């Protein structure tokens, strides 16, 4: 379920604000289904935000981040038209990536 990511990157003075919305179930592995069987854990472990191919924020997540995670970060030095990407990798090895340009 390699998902797309919705991203917006907007300049505010010299700071660029990135907002990303990922699609992911973020199962903790602690819940059980209706038959009482545990639902296997499936959550995003690693998130990377890049600006012109340079990492600006990198995160490791546990299962406690909400389903369909939202992430907002800020960095300096962005210019309109620059490339911003957000990518993730979950504990099953699936990946997702999204790309946008700064407005």
């Amino acid at each position: 379920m390699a998902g797309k990511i919705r991203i917006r990157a907007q300049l505010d003075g010299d700071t660029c604000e990135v907002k990303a919305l990922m699609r992911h179930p973020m199962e903790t592995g602690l819940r059980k289904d209706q038959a009482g069987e545990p639902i296997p854990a499936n959550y995003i472990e690693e998130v990377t935000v890049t600006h012109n191919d340079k990492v600006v924020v990198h995160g490791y997540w546990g299962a406690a981040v909400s389903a369909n995670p939202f992430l907002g970060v800020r960095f300096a030095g962005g210019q309109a038209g620059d490339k911003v990407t957000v990518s993730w990798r979950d504990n099953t090895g699936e990946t997702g990536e999204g790309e946008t340009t700064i407005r």
Partner: protein
Amino acid sequence: MKVEPVGGMARRKFLRVGALIATAVALPAKLWAAVTKPDAAFAATDLNATFAALGQTPTESAGIIFTTPDIAENGAVVPIKIEVDESVLPGVSRLYVMVEKNPNPMAAMFSVVEGSKPYIETRVKVAQTCNLYAVAENKEGFFMASKETKVTLGGCGG
């Protein structure tokens, strides 16, 4: 008469190309090897053990501006915001989010590259009413700010 398995060939080739693309997409994440995941901190089951796994119990700091809702109707989606006043806490390189009474308090950790702002906005699950902690790390050690969030509906299961 022999029939050429054209469809079969094309499909096989397609699969092979697909696998190549998948590998290429997975690569960028691996290039970032500067920070390894602090597995012990993520596996810790109470707050003190989490702090111990990081190496230090953080000291309170007014330099961390931690915004959380006082009351969360739905514990599965609790919006949080961490900002750092860089005149009080300069050079923050990492930010951590912890939820005291979750099965594993450590929810997320972020490495902030120099030049980026120590600023994070996200949403976390909160199992029950408890304190949420925002922890910032710089060269001098760990600093924190905490806030209580009342949960009227739990964040795990439903």
